[in-house]
């Protein structure tokens, strides 16, 4: 029995393991929307429904899905659709749940979106670590081919769609859309210069629509029930429901589907059970590890794209990581920076060098070898990363690290002082060592 505070649209019937099979999915009305779209609807009708719904991309950027699809040029050239299932943002695990429990909903969404984009080839780029989910998708895709929902001349409507599940091999950067395209073309996953955007020149140089798993999973629901129905959920600027991943210092971590705009407190305390007894929330990332951290004073903000943006953070992929009062913020900043340093592809100097030096400086902080001036240097390095690279990987470290240094500066200074080397040692006077211990 689902928690009554949830609004399950994408996760409807997800508790039923049979949903994973094509018969189970059809038992709940699955693929009826694909049949309707292929048999009765024109490309523009599908596109208009998606645009009118106001569905915003669920992968992080929050860009209008319908608008993105409408950017693809018309014409005879080969066009492509890529489903971004490279979910690698620390704190995010919603796509894993959607693919594991309801793979056919995603396949149906891809087929309908391919109609809107006039794409003949579609790919699901799934991160290499999700081997179990890739196997589930492989089985589901085979079933869909068998049933005639994919392949040549779908339902006799003279439309073709080939769908390939492409497993990555472990690189966070491949979630960046142009790096994903390079990886899918069989190269190292390095981002490309934009513009031209993938909608104009993407996979194999052709127009390409790239959308997140959750975004595409919404498509059958919107086309089945109409844009007005979809806008009945959520807020004006953030319509629909959102599968929110909550983890870290909470008692019931997991994925919860809610209407956008509900109070963040309701998510963290209501659904996820709040922090362990005897502990309090110190900070939380509202949208994955790339989002600037927020403090308990911001718990009552509505959980929506616009409210998180106004608070100086972002909804991102919709992944909340809670840090309780036991967590050392400088150590959390180091852990965050370490991740981006490891995952930086090395193409752009500000990111490659900036993540490296941020890690080194934060290591100095937690070892007590830093001075408060180093905190200013850390901040200035972050400012020199933001906006200076081909993609936002560097920014994704710079934003949360800056926020932590700014909002928890006292703690950074305390850690520097308490980690406790006398200044003399920092400056290289070995005899002070004995005095310190």
């Amino acid at each position, binding site marked *: *029995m689902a*928690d009554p505070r*949830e609004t*399950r649209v994408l996760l409807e019937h*997800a*508790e039923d393991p049979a949903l994973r099979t094509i018969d189970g999915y059809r038992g709940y009305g699955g693929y009826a929307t694909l049949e309707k779209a292929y048999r009765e609807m024109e490309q523009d009708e599908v596109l208009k429904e998606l645009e009118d719904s106001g569905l915003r991309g669920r992968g992080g950027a929050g860009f209008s899905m319908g608008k993105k699809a409408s950017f693809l040029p018309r014409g005879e050239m*080969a066009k492509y659709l890529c489903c971004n299932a490279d*979910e*690698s*943002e*620390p*704190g*995010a*695990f919603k796509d*894993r*749940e959607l693919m*594991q*429990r309801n793979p056919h909903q995603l396949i149906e969404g891809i087929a309908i979106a391919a109609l809107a984009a006039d794409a003949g080839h579609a790919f699901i780029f799934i991160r*290499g*670590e999700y*081997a179990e989910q890739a196997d589930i998708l492989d089985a589901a895709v085979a079933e869909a081919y068998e049933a005639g929902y994919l392949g040549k001349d779908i339902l006799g409507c003279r439309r073709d769609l080939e769908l*390939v599940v*492409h*497993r*990555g*091999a*472990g*690189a*966070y950067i491949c979630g960046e859309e142009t790096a994903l*395209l390079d990886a899918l*073309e*069989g*190269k*190292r996953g390095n981002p*490309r*210069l934009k*513009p*031209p955007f993938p909608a104009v*020149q993407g996979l194999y*140089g052709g127009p390409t629509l790239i959308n997140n798993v959750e975004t595409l999973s919404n498509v059958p629901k919107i086309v089945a029930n109409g844009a007005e129905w979809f806008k009945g959920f959520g807020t004006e600027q953030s319509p629909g429901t959102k599968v929110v991943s909550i*983890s*870290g210092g909470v008692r019931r*971590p*997991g*994925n919860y589907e809610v209407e956008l705009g509900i109070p963040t407190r309701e998510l963290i305390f209501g*659904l996820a059970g709040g922090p362990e*007894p*005897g502990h309090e929330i110190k900070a939380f990332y509202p949208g994955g*590890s790339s989002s600037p951290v927020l403090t308990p004073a911001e718990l009552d903000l509505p959980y929506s794209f616009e409210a998180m943006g106004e608070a100086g953070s972002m909804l991102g992929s919709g*992944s909340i990581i809670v840090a*309780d009062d*036991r*967590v*050392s913020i400088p*150590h*959390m900043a*180091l*852990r965050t920076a370490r*991740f981006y340093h490891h*995952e930086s592809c090395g193409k752009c100097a500000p990111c490659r060098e900036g993540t490296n030096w941020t890690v080194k400086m934060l290591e100095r902080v937690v070892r007590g070898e830093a001075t408060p001036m180093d905190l200013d240097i850390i901040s200035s390095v972050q400012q020199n990363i933001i906006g200076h690279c081909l993609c936002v990987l560097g920014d994704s470290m710079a934003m949360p690290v800056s926020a932590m240094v700014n909002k928890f500066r006292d703690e950074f200074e305390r850690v520097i002082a308490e980690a406790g080397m006398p200044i003399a040692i920092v400056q290289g006077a070995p005899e002070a060592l004995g005095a310190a211990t």
Partner: protein
Amino acid sequence: MSPVDGAGISNPNLPVDIAVTKGRVPGRSEEQIPELHEVDCPPELRERIEGLMARYPDRRSASIPALWAVQERYGWCTPDGIRQAAAVMRFTPADLESVASFYDLLHTDPVGTHRIEVCTNISCWMRGGDELLDAFVAAGEGADVHITGFECLGACDIAPMASIDQRYYGPLEAAEAATAIEQLNAGADVLPDKALAARPLAGDTPPPTGRNREPESRNRPIDGEVRGG
């Protein structure tokens, strides 16, 4: 010569050259592509890679899947395996090596028969990921198991967790590391009740009430420098 080979040459009418926007394709000299008869590629592997190439409009797209196939066959991306794939795909071995060395899950050095990746990223770290990694390393001493710390595996709901032979398990206690390794060595099912596949949705589990089972040992500052990764 421009910083990117061919920039500005292939199409001067494009605002940005195609060599920049499409990513750089390494230079290729035909004589460096091994011939099939030189590499002794097992027929199954060859068929598999040819099948993979046929799935894509461009055969290069099969690089990562082909390297997965090599790794599955030989345990890691061996130089010979890479040459075999290169011969089938008509690329230079360097092309494929450049891909293999980029990705964390493709191993260009020998690894054990079994592979365990322990997440040490933020959410797992908060719940004991570092201690779990230490426990696995200690328990795996001498066993034919490759154990490594890893960045976020996308399963923060079951933190602290590990991926054991490409299946997810969690939340794990440090003591379960030894059990898992014993089960791997014995060829038994690993920690069946901790498998991710068996878990219900969080919202379908009873909501937490009152005080719960937070062990005293967890009640300490969460800090420590990064291990593994």
